[in-house]
């Protein structure tokens, strides 16, 4: 079991409130991603749940039990750190066995569990090595192994993939998702990378300056962002925001159009503009276009759409997919 409930959780350092007050419920078995720009308080929130930081006020419950004042060890949670935080003086086997040894489990059982974890994570051949002799991906797997052996009620991941190269990050993302399918244990995952958030999460929590901006499934956030911040943060490339007469004509202070929700043409359309940069990725082409009377707009065209710097293009935003926001940045229905 691993249902985690935060009630008015507040964390302040001196007079600065890093997290002014958060209410959040994480259901058992959910994969929840905390996402937000750096300094938004997502790691602090994770560390509060872990018990590595003390709350200033508020209550943290795990499976209905108040654990606010409990030490990390008592909370039945396992954590994977950004730096992996492996014990450099111990072999892989001893690293994975460490939580079991601390729990005073019999040696035979420890051996069996370590072998099992190593098999799941393809580490069987590396059990006698030291962390220093492993590659980044292998170290990350050892850190995950150390987390899964003791069957915690929830896993906490603190930006676990940000030290890996792009290719490895892609495959580790899939491995972690598969692990979640297998174990069906609650996972809380912190990242600043919205691609990781979109691809892995059951539920995304978007944080900004210590506050929750929106909670929802990836597609909910993508389809109906509650405000400008979420609209701008979720989706890549970023949503285009247009203010001025174009927005006023639609009874809004700002309207937003995603780059992929525009029809491109070289002959006709609603907006006329000049291509400043064309990024040809193969399957897609991202165009940065200076639109007359609107400003700089990013648009996604198919890979075959052959235009270059200086060409004139026409854009028609999909009228059904225009997002409208009021002067405070909140979405209008």
């Amino acid at each position: 079991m691993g249902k985690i409930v935060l009630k008015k959780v507040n964390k302040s350092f001196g007079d600065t409130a890093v997290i002014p007050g958060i209410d959040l419920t994480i259901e058992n078995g959910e994969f929840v991603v905390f996402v937000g720009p750096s300094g938004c308080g997502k790691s602090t929130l994770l560390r509060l749940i872990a018990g590595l930081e003390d709350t200033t006020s508020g209550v943290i419950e795990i499976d209905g039990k108040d654990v606010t004042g409990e030490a990390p060890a008592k909370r039945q949670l396992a954590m994977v750190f950004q730096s992996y935080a492996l014990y450099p003086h111990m072999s892989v086997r001893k690293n994975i066995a460490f939580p079991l040894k601390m729990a005073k489990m019999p040696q035979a059982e420890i051996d069996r569990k370590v072998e099992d974890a190593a098999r799941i994570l393809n580490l069987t051949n590396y059990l006698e090595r030291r962390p220093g002799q492993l590659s980044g991906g292998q170290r990350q797997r050892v850190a995950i192994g150390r987390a899964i052996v003791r069957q915690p009620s929830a896993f906490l991941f603190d930006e676990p993939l940000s030290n890996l190269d792009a290719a490895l990050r892609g495959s580790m993302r899939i491995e972690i998702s598969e692990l979640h399918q297998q174990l069906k244990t609650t996972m809380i995952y912190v990242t600043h990378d919205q691609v990781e958030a979109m691809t892995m999460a059951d539920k995304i929590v978007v944080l900004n300056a210590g506050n929750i901006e929106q909670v929802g499934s990836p597609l909910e956030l993508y389809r109906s962002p509650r405000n400008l911040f979420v609209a701008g943060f979720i989706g890549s490339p970023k949503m285009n925001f247009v203010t001025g007469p174009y927005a006023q004509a639609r009874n809004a202070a700002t309207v937003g159009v995603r780059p992929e929700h525009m029809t491109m043409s070289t002959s006709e359309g609603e907006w006329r503009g000049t291509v400043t940069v064309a990024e040809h990725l193969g399957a897609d082409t991202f165009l940065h276009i200076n639109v007359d009377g609107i400003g700089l707009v990013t648009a996604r065209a198919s890979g075959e759409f052959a235009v270059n710097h200086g060409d004139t293009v026409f854009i028609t935003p999909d009228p059904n997919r225009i997002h409208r926001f009021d002067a405070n940045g909140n979405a209008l229905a």
Partner: protein
Amino acid sequence: MARSVSTRRTAVVTLVAWAVALLIFFPILYTIITSFKSEQEAIQGFDLIPSFTLESYRDVQSQYDYFTPFMNSVILSLGSTILALIVAVPAAWSMAFAPSRRTKDILMWMLSTKMMPAVAVLFPIYMLFRDLGLLDSRIGLTIMLMLINLPIVVWMLYTYFREIPGEILEAARMDGASLWGEIVYVLTPMAVPGIASTMLLNIILAWNEAFWTIRLTTTNAAPLTAFIASFSSPQGLFWAKLSAASTLAIAPILIMGWFSQKQLVRGLTFGAVK
């Protein structure tokens, strides 16, 4: 392009380095040479070739008690080092992993006490020792040596502990380790090289300490430093015997330093080079 250094230049630099090293080591070398001379030879003037007589060593051994000050030196340096570590490990741990706003000030203040001339506090400390009945006692001197070296021990351990990433200790905490488990299974094994070199340096410093050992002892607790000093008094100067006693006093620490030099260099430059 890598920087190239000509062979001639390397030779010159090597020669200069050897010359400087010899200059620094020369007083010790000459002490050792003199210890193998007879008393007549020793006062005759500068001479690098001794007659290799062991006469002075025999005299020092037979006429004076070398064993008691030697044992005192061992007890004082080991005792003060162990005592210092017992106090300094928790202190450095809390400064490195649970620093407060004043931690840096405390560290600077501790270091500043080492800048004060020892003689400035000689009188109050002497009075304290007299009133507490600690004069010429091993316990009193062990505490004294521990106190004067404590700032250095805390500083060294602090810089060592600071190199250990906090996330590893947090990982141990998440893995269910108690504070004790964290220190025994994770922190200490990772800090062993640092603790060892701190220990070595402190033993050497305590062994060589002469100001307080000479001031606060007479016979019972007198270590080798006081033993050497006693040769320059009543009977006049006996250079050869004094040299033999000095050689006997520095030999143990010189041998220990030689065998542990790698460890020591690593300890003293830790953090500066990786």
